[in-house]
């Protein structure tokens, strides 16, 4: 630091701690809600401090049927489904985008710009907006109730391609020149030079896409009819709206906690690469 003033340092930490508390508060309340019995969760004001039903609730959530009435879909299976979906979306999208960005940046070929724009108009438009026509395509292809149907349609987006294109454009041309002098073909150049250079970006994208995939709910709701394909976020949304019943907050919040753990773990575990990959290129 430039100078050392105890009061300034105190103020700094105070603001940061307050910030952390404000950010963490919703999750603290989630946790508290998961530690009380259903009766307490119907009384105002809701508690701020944990009760003693955490284990009971967790047991009911994990090993009972929860409360969603979804026959035969225990929470661990939902977690597994979410994991499969998130992994397929993240790896699938990274692979196809790396390849297409490589082709568009490093090759000159007829229809290059056509392909480029075809990919790029898919940027940003969320699946919710075109959900019914997309559903029909997936159904026609017989992909309902499958991991393919859950993940592949969500891979159709240009964000990752856009990002890799930016990364590749910043790679100095000398790299390619010297690689060609060494007699490296396109694929060797791709694997030996481009991939290692994009390491942090791949990591950052993995985090973003994993979270994106994990957090889907409307799409899984529509395309799974087999309860063994239920994903966890979708089940929480369903629990919130049981007809003519009040929501059982203790179980919903216990499930919500479980649903948060994997993506939060991924973000925190890959924090360093994530931050580097995000902030060092694409601005």
């Amino acid at each position, binding site marked *: 630091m430039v100078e050392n003033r105890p009061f300034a340092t105190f103020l700094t930490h105070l603001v940061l701690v307050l910030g952390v508390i404000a950010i963490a508060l919703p999750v603290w309340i989630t946790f508290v809600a998961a530690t009380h019995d259903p009766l307490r969760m119907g009384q105002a004001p809701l508690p701020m401090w944990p009760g003693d039903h955490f284990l009971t609730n967790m047991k009911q959530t994990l090993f009972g049927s929860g*409360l969603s009435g979804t*026959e035969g879909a225990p929470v661990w*299976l939902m977690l597994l489904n979410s994991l*499969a979906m998130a992994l397929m979306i993240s790896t699938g999208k990274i692979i196809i985008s790396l390849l297409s960005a490589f082709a568009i940046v490093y090759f000159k070929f007829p229809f290059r710009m056509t392909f480029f724009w075809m990919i790029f108009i898919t940027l940003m438009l969320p699946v919710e907006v075109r959900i019914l026509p997309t559903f*029909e395509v997936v159904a026609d292809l017989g992909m309902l109730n499958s991991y393919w149907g859950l993940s592949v349609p969500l891979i159709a987006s240009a964000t990752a391609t856009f990002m890799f294109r930016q990364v590749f454009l910043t790679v100095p041309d000398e790299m390619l020149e010297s690689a060609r002098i060494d007699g490296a073909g396109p694929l060797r150049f791709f694997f030996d030079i481009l991939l290692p250079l994009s390491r942090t970006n791949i990591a950052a994208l993995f985090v973003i896409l994993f979270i994106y995939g994990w957090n889907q709910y409307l799409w899984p709701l529509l395309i799974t*009819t087999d309860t063994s394909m239920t994903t966890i976020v979708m089940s929480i949304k369903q629990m919130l709206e049981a007809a*003519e*019943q*009040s929501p059982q907050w203790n179980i919903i919040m216990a499930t919500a906690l479980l649903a948060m753990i994997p993506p939060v773990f991924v973000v925190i575990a890959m924090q360093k690469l994530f931050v580097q990959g995000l902030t060092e290129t694409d601005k």
Partner: protein
Amino acid sequence: MSIKSILSASAVVAVAGSTAFAETEIQWWHAMGGTNGERVNKIAEDFNASQDEYKVVPVYKGNYTETMTAAIAAFRAKEHPEIVQVFEVGTATMMAAKGAVYPVEQLMKDAGEPFDGDAFLPAVVSYYETPEGELLSMPFNSSTPVLWYNKDALDAAGADVPTTWEEVRTASQKLVDNGMKCGVSFGYQSWVMIENFSAWHNLPSGTKENGFGGFDTELTFNNDKVAARLDDIADMGKEGLFVYGGRRGDSLPMFTNGDCGMWMNSSAYYGSISEQADFEFGQTMLPLDTKIADAPQNSIIGGATLWVLAGHDEEEYKGTAKFLSYLSSPEVQAWWHQETGYVPITTAAYELSKEQGFYEKNPGTDIAIKQLSLNTPTANSRGIRYGNFVQIRDVINEELEALWGGEKTAKEALDAAVERGNDLLRRFERSAK
């Protein structure tokens, strides 16, 4: 492929025992979450255990709209279930889809299942019949709005259980004077305050027998009588006697927490209220607006019915018919009624519950049935059949919220709702030819 096969293998393990060999599978998509979902599963399990030719597979598809949209999307893709639970708001949409639904009465006849239309409670089935009296879908979970009251609070405030709107006002005043945050609130406002309010006072809410007579119906609930009632409620809001607590059942905690002494909403909240209220509560019939009528007509139902979708084979329909017979048997209906608070669909189930002494043990639980069968339904109190009704209810929600928020008068809000609603009806009329 590998991830899929590994995971689906584990999925198979997880639902082990559900693999059927010679049984014909019947898919039943429903919107019953929570404990009611467990009860749905029990009905299916019991049916499956009672015979070995058919296997009903209940699938929870989310809330009512999600279930209906999922089934329609699946129908367009030819992947639809045999049975789908559709809320009463979707009735016109389902009915208009002539090639898509298999009328229940027809199905029963074709499958040779005994079916007696007279066995059903008229107020329950009339909502789902064609003008010729053919039953289109099987009522499953039906309820009607009642007035819930906090007996302890009313007693403490020295107020009586109200039977008219004037008494609702005085009781609310006493409750608030006695320290409560509000006197009265309600949920599902279109259903309770427009559709049922009109039926209860034998007023039409639209032309053509509330839409039963044809798709060229027009909304008419923007009459002075409804407007006067709503204006009075809005005034009660300004005086702190009425507090608006959201759409659907969002305002339930206001009642169970003792904020509001009275709450108008579905009789099916019995389970939730008895779980959460730590006071003595009761239910009574909807209040009467004495400026409009001297005696109430009858209320109309809400909830959902089971529709059978077209395009499956004969064997599956046989099983479907058998299952619907099972479902409407007095024993199953009485059990379902007593467990959930939904009304029974047959007279036999009602009689059986009486015999079993259910209403003596649980006073008030027969209010809904009494209210529904108070009089023979008229053209105004038979039910509602408007197309695009999901959106029309949204419009009504939006306009009433403008009224509660003080942005519009009742007349302005109702006029706007009717105008926007009629546009939606015309669009529906064009699509449903």
